[in-house]
């Protein structure tokens, strides 16, 4: 089973919401759509589900052109960010609803619903109504419906966004096993890069109705093709600054300067560097050698990590380091950059060098 998008677009009232997009989603692993709110993830899912009309292009499922098929005729499931269950039906009836519509035999419905309920630990709640369930249980009901239906394609549109932190982690861990070996193409939309890294077999990075890069998740995390792709796939935001290259030497701002021997073939000029926050540390190390002078703006402690937002003359950067560091807001503090972790982009945002870190 594959879903193939050939140059599909979505146009609403003269405005292009989805620019020409071609992708191919495979079964056997999660396909993540990663992008900020408004990047077009939900739009793309609705196009694939047939809930919105596409302006041009074609959609194929398993080689069959489904562009003209109504939602009802596409064998799909969709789990929303907010919990959609029929309020007047019990959990059992909610899970069974697509099977009943398909005219399945009663005994088979019973079996399928119970299997799905067991997987999602809903067995004791089968005879309750949705409003008697917690948010996590409601969302598990929606997931159980998708699983019981055994559809060819499952679209999960930020299914964990409205759950509290702990439930989110728990369910996120379960998700890949839930759909493993079911033969369905799973497309998972999220705005959190971390989620993409945890779940994604492959990831499509989206920005402003565009898919900016698509490929195996780890691969595109390491090797973004454009500055935009690097920005989309980084949380906290990736640090960007202008550098000028002369010979083998890169100069950033007033003082930071380092040699990059691998740039022999790159012409001199102005470039952007991008470096992830965890490659900028408050203490020097064998790798983190390039000193930067910053002034602390904001500091955050999260678990065992400290992050500091600091200002340099022409950019504000973030550093993320293990351990608890005693920052003082407003103080001048040196930070150390790992030059080998820097990504170098041309001024129009195309990758020039770096990556693999």
């Amino acid at each position, binding site marked *: 089973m594959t879903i193939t998008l050939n140059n599909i677009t979505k146009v609403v009232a003269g405005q292009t919401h989805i620019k020409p997009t071609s992708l191919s989603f495979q079964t056997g692993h999660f396909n993540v759509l990663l992008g900020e709110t408004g990047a077009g993830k939900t739009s793309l899912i609705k196009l694939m589900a047939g809930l919105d009309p596409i302006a041009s292009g074609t959609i194929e499922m398993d080689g069959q052109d489904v562009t003209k098929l*109504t939602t*009802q005729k596409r064998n799909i*499931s*969709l789990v*929303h960010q*907010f919990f959609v269950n029929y309020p*007047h039906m019990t959990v059992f009836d909610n899970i069974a609803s*697509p099977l009943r*519509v398909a005219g399945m035999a009663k005994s088979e419905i019973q079996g399928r619903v119970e299997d799905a309920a067991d997987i999602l630990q809903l067995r004791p709640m089968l005879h309750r109504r949705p409003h008697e369930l917690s948010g996590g249980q409601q969302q598990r009901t929606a997931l159980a419906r998708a699983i019981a239906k055994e559809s060819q394609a499952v679209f999960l549109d930020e299914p964990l966004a409205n759950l509290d932190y702990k439930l989110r982690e728990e369910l996120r861990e379960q998700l890949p096993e839930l759909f493993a070996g079911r033969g369905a193409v799973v497309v998972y939309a999220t705005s959190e890069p971390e989620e993409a890294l945890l779940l994604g077999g492959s990831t499509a990075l989206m920005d402003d109705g565009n898919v900016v890069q698509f490929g195996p998740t780890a691969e595109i995390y390491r090797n973004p093709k454009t500055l935009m792709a690097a920005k989309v796939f980084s949380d906290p935001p990736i640090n960007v600054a202008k550098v000028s290259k002369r010979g083998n030497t890169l100069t950033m701002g007033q003082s930071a300067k380092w040699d990059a021997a691998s740039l022999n073939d790159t012409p001199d000029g102005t470039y952007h560097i991008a470096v992830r926050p965890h490659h900028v540390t408050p203490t020097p190390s064998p790798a983190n050698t390039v000193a930067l002078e910053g002034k602390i703006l904001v500091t955050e402690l999260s678990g065992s990590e400290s992050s500091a937002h600091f200002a340099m003359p022409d950019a504000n950067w973030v550093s993320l380091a293990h351990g608890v560091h005693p920052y003082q807001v407003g103080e001048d503090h040196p930070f150390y950059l790992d030059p080998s972790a820097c990504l170098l982009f041309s001024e129009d945002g195309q990758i020039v060098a770096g990556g693999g870190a």
Partner: protein
Amino acid sequence: MKTQNQRAWFFVLPVLLLVAFNALIPMMTVVNYSVQETFGNNVFFWEGVRWFEELLNSERFHAALGRQFLFTGIILAIEVPLGIAIALAMPRSGPWVPVCLVLMALPMLIPWNVVGAMWNIFALPDIGLLGYFMNTTLGIDYDMTQNPFAAWATIITMDVWHWTSLVVLLSYAGLVSIPDAYYQAAKIDGASNWSVFRYIQLPKMKQVLTIAILLRFMDSFNIYTEVFVMTGGGPGNSTTFLSIDLVKIALGQFDLGPAAAMSLIYFAITLLVSWLFYTLMTKDDAK
């Protein structure tokens, strides 16, 4: 706590007084009449349950009751499905929404007797638009003062015109409260339009529909003004519904005792059917 509860009575008192004067006292008067015979001059003779016995065994009452149930049944059978269908067809958003709502509300704003007079003139065979069209253009012999079927058809059409809007507006209110997400979920389930209606729209409309059916039952079961103006119960007794018959007995024949007994039975039937219907419809929700 206790003193507060006692004080509450004080606030209820004015309403109690009002209800006493507009409902309880008139009702008791009726009860008083229903067990006595009077020839005027405030002279009364005790009759016990005689009027009730006579009425329940009277063919005239059975006939009026039968006509009443038939009429109400036809009214509900037409107005409820038609109202739902119109509500489904109305736009959910856009500039046409207020236009549709006002158009729908218009018939309901016209007073009953005016509606009766309008339809009376409308149906006149020689000068009424409907009457003229039926007789002259279509060549159908149509005169509701002569033909019982024409009288029934006209009264039913009038009521459908007058009151279907109530069902439409209530159903519409139920429909617009359904979030888009449910329609999407149903589509993804593979549901046909019928299943969407059966499993999403109808359950969501259930509560307002219960109210709509209840109101339409009570109103059509108690219909008087329009029928009085349009046919006066005729031709013959063909459109003599319970209320028309009641007024004939009470004011035409001035049989106050039998009329009072009939009022009480009439009231009891309306109450009983409404209560049964409401209990049945809300049984599931209470569970």
